[in-house]
């Protein structure tokens, strides 16, 4: 059943369309994803927590939801905006259609709007706070709800919402290295890729202390991606500082930013973020270009990398830092997602290479 729905941006721009499934009012940052496939992965990507996600590709839901592609046990976005949802999806792996799944997952969704017009606003204005209302009663509250939300800090607490609360052990085969994953909102694909490469994983809450981590006696540490501003996690940064030099460490996305902060660099908020599967990144050591999957609103300021950190990767579109390594310690990090899901697998080899250095 379709009902009235709208997206209201903090600058007053409003898009009226139809709502899908679940009557609710969602508050979040309005951002856009440029991938043409991978909506299931994106909607369940913990890094989108607290965000109202717009799909630039106009036809979403063509192949339904398989469950197998999900990156988290539930949808993580605050709300979703699409031009059109396929009314008759078709795929052999489909378990449920997207509209029904969004209702089931309680994701307020707006369809039928001019998404390109919205993306143009976001590009020009930058990421902006927004309210998405589905149903008459939510629509009546849309303005009164957005005003106070737009004034407050919005990213605190996002990681806590999607990250694991308890240590999870992921067994692997024949005595590979034991890797602690500091979970700030890890994707299933990272766990899948690392364990497929033979690593034994302990997925630990982002707030785990140095002692708790040491108690696990890991061989190495991976700091996961996750939502929001890395400076919202000062304790995690402190923990990482304490661990520098103790273990080989590898950071991905938010993990890259946290490691950079722990080493003394600074981060900043990108005008409208990188979210999609077509970001060209130059590997400065190999001289090769990788097409990579991105999902981040903040970036490491490459100019602030301390002398012991060396930039290894740079974004060819806007020149932002995409990776670094420590000159003397076994520490490296990338801003993009080697695990893809959604997106291309050009950088998948990084996990394997890093694991190889452990043995």
């Amino acid at each position, binding site marked *: 059943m379709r009902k009235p729905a709208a997206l209201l941006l903090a600058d007053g721009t409003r898009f009226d369309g139809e709502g899908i499934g679940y009557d609710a009012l969602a508050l979040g940052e309005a951002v*856009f994803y*440029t*991938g*043409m*496939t*991978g909506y*299931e*992965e994106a909607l369940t990507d913990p890094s989108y927590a607290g965000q109202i996600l717009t799909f*630039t*590709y*106009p*036809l979403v839901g*063509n*192949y339904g939801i*398989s469950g197998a*592609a999900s990156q988290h046990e539930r949808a993580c976005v605050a709300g979703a905006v699409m*031009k*059109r949802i*396929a*009314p*008759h*999806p*078709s*795929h*052999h*792996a489909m378990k449920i259609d997207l509209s029904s799944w969004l209702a089931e997952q309680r994701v307020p969704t707006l369809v039928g709007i*001019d*998404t*390109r*017009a919205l*993306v*143009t606003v976001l*590009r020009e204005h930058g990421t902006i706070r927004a309210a998405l209302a589905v149903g008459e009663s939510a629509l009546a509250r849309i303005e009164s709800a957005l005003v106070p939300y737009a004034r407050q800090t919005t990213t605190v607490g996002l990681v806590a919402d999607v990250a694991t609360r308890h240590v999870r052990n992921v067994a692997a085969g024949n005595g590979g290295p034991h890797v602690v994953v500091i979970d700030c909102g890890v994707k299933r694909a990272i766990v899948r890729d690392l364990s497929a490469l033979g690593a034994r994983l302990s997925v630990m809450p982002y707030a785990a202390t140095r002692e708790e981590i040491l108690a696990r006696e890991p061989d190495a540490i991976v700091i996961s991606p996750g939502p929001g501003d890395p400076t919202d996690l000062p304790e995690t940064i402190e923990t990482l500082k304490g661990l520098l030099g103790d273990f080989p460490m590898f950071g991905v996305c938010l993990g890259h930013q946290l490691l950079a902060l722990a080493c003394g660099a600074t981060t900043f908020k990108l005008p409208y973020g990188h979210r*999609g*599967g*077509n970001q*060209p990144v*130059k590997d*400065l050591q190999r*001289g*090769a*270009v990788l*097409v990579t999957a991105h999902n981040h609103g903040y970036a490491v300021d490459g100019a602030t990398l301390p002398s012991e950190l060396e930039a290894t990767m*740079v*974004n*060819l*579109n806007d*020149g932002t830092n995409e990776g670094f390594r420590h000159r003397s310690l076994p520490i490296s990090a990338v801003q993009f997602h080697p695990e*893809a*899901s*959604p*997106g*291309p*697998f*050009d950088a998948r080899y990084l996990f394997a290479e890093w694991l190889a250095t452990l043995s």
Partner: protein
Amino acid sequence: MAGAVTVRTVPRRSVLVIGSGPIVIGQAAEFDYAGVQACRALREEGQRVILVNSNPATIMTDPEIADVVYLEPLTAASLDAIIARERPDALLPTLGGQTGLNLAVELHEAGTLERYGLELLGTPIETIKLAEDRAQFKEAMLRIGEPVPASAVVNDVESGVRFANELGYPLVVRPAYTLGGTGGGVVRSENELRHILAAGLGASLINQALVETSLLGWKEIEYEILRDRADNCIIVCNMENIDPVGVHTGDSIVVAPSQTLSDQEYQLLRSASLNVIRALNVQGGCNIQFALHPERTEYNIIEVNPRVSRSSALASKATGYPIAKISTKIALGKTLDEIENPVTGVTKAAYEPTLDYVVVKIPRWPFDKFPRADTRLGTQMKSTGEAMGIGRTFGAALVKAVRGLDLGRETLTGTSVALWNEDQLDDAITAPTHERLFALAESLRRGVPVAALAKASAIDPFWLNELGELVELEERLRAQPAGHDLRVAAELGYSQASIARLTDTNRNVSLWNQASHAEGEGQGAGRNAFRMVDTAAAEFPARSPYYYLSRYEQDEMRRPAREAIVVVGSGPIRIGQGIEFDYSCVRAAWALREAGRAAVVVNNNPETVSTDFDVSDVLVFEPPGPDEVQAAYDATGASGVLLAFGGQTAINLAAELTKRGVRIIGSDRKSVDMAEDRRKFDAALARLGVARPEGRAASSFRQARAIARELGFPVLVRPSYVLGGRGMEIVYNEGQLASYVETAPPITPGAPLLVDKYLRGLELEVDAVYDGQDVLVPGIFEHVERAGIHSGDSISVYPPQIIDALMQARIVEITRSIAHELQTRGSINIQFVLHEGELYIIEANPRASRTVPIISKVTGVNLVAAATRVALGEKLRDMPYGTGLTPATPFVVVKIPVFSFAKMHGVETILGPEMKSTGEVLGVDQTFAGALRKGFIAAGVRVPDTSVPGKRGRILVSISDQEKADAIAVLRRYAACGFALVATDGTHELLVENGIDSERINKISDGSPHVLDAIASRSVDLVINDAVGPRQLSDGYRIRRAAVEASVACLTSLDTAGALVEALESSAGPPRSLQEYRAAAQASQYYGVAR
């Protein structure tokens, strides 16, 4: 980032570029588009470009595009001679289609590349050979772990049969080294296998074919990839064929990007693409075709093309990413991160475009002209062109592509297919034909469930459901449309006219307006919003985007600062309206820009130069229909519309656009009407005292017969609406007239049959520009074949070889007076016939024609620019092109048509008033005979070297009674050249009586071995089967078709045979560039040298 990338400069060298030659099915305008981008990219990098292409209708052979242009045959011998003269440093072979690749391989094998130290740019020769050699390719794929279908590479039919006995049927036959799947096909029985494999082996350059297990019914997915020398790879685009494996991708409805693939599948095939392109060491563009199982995660690699292709042209236009341009820069050694993305200006070429719209391509087939052709689609391509639609939804893109085919179909239902019975629908759905889309729509309309159609067609239910939504909307519009339905129809790209037809109302405009008012149309979200194609889904601002219409969305059109003029394009390439009109549109756009105006192009053909992003100031990628032209005109604030360059498609808009208040510049509606309305045209000619073949319009068969009796047979008959001579025929007696009327469209007073006296004389053609005062005639063409063969199918010669200066002056004078009488302002094309000393007018069209590109290149008179400037109000006297008849060149050019009969099963090859050729070549030489010789060679006729004594080969001759007297003279010349003549009874006796040696051969009815066996075994080298007279559906037809199947040249006119023997008797001069010819022409004019 400047810090990340060091941009290197490329050293200046001279680079030889091989074009793809004449337009044939499977190799068309896409290579002009790619070639032009390549040449421009090379020059951008400071290279000296030497271009060889025999196709004169292309933009790439204009002297502005390359430093040196050779309009010479594309053969290894001809290229060898050019290389010897020009000594280029490098060769770029990957932009001239299969022709370019095959020639590069030939030159390599012949040692030419090595002898002259030519570096091969881009993809190495080993890769080209590997991708083409079926056996090596299969082995290479298996080595890198990529799955390919089980197959056997065979060099003879028996091995194929043995393999088939192991694997069972169906199987696919794929000959190596052919284009557009020539000679291939799906076979379901041993009989079919024997037949198709024999033909396929014959078509293969290396007598090799692959027989493979069929993946019929799997999804067909294509990836367009680029790789540079540093091993950086990007995917430009992927595409999904709605027609599953089994239909050639050129004949499939193709959607970009894929719609039914999950991200895992998309990335699986992406990773496989990279794996393949790396293993093959491709440097530049590459196309990979996959079959993806519809029910499980399993794929096979079907084919790899390590070059730019029709698919890469489509991918470029679908995404905005100029593949040919970037490929060229890669070939020069640049890497993707060094090259900028010219559409955004801010990103790099190392970037994978992302779309926020859907693209649908539908092929345009020539079956409307060939009712007897086999219309079933398979692995051998049959379409001549394609139309592309861009929309924010699949439905909108599909509707635009359907409308853009220019078949008079504006909707999915309610077409002629609606009259079919269930069996007919089922047939077209299970054994696909060009009507499958419409048969599916009609079946859905009749309530056939999607599941049943999916099962019958193997088409994914996703597409059928989407199609079903359009069908339901059309049905609602027919029944009780709500205001919302009208709005949805407008969003989906239906035209005003089609919505009016569906809603069966004359109040179309008011309904249309009502709909928009009802939906609260605002200023920002207009009914005619233009959206950008920007490669980036709006993530980055775009510098040189192009546009499509998306109604009721936000308008992004950037109104040009300068006065805008709209150039209306000609839509998909079809027989009768080909690349030459695209040439004129491009030259018009450039002329407008030179004249300080902003050029706005409206066209929907993804293959062409006119839809390249930087040809115009504003490109509107939409079907050139009245709604779209008007919208472009309004949105750009244009001051006028030029229709004269987009062929009949554009001209046909004159009345409607005038009604809507759109200003047409140049010749306007009145002028078009006067030329097309027979009564008005006759009256105009009468006023001028100019004759035309006597004739009248008949509104019944009786009347037609009476007129024919009065005029005397033979007569030329045709329906009153004509494009490319469609439905036109010469009939010699009443019986033929009756059978013509039976098969032609019904005669009514509203659509009469035109009956003209047929005058068999010398046909002449001029292209001219008239400004109201002066006329400019750059040249007069003489046709080699006497009147009766469509001008597009006849060999034509410039400068005239037969008519004298006096007659030429008379032609110029008549041209001027007709142009004046028709109120022409700009281009006019007039065809004459000279019959017993008297000059008659056949027809006049106030537009550019097929010969415009040729005469412009050859004489150096930029005819399109002159016509454009006249339309803008300038006078010829103020331009540098002169007035009156341009002095003749001291060299001769001969245009020879090229046919694609091998791709059109069942089609009668006799030439007549209905055009059948798909392309053309130009022979250029000092002498007429030399130009003929080069032209025939360029057209692919095997011309033996007559300077060496010895036997030339055998010619199978069969001559009709009417032509016997003329035939003897021609055949005697063949015999004198050393050819052995072979003939059946009648002709054999005629030859013997006239003292010409002849070998008798059995007619078909005499039993084997007969003529067909001789042709099939290629024991004859040429067939002359003169076809004047009654339509021969029996022996003559079978002989001509057999010749086509066996790739033996077959001439159906004695005039053509006469021209060929003239070419055989002579030799041609060495290759010379167009620039050299032009310089010689200028010198001769300067010194007043008489020809």
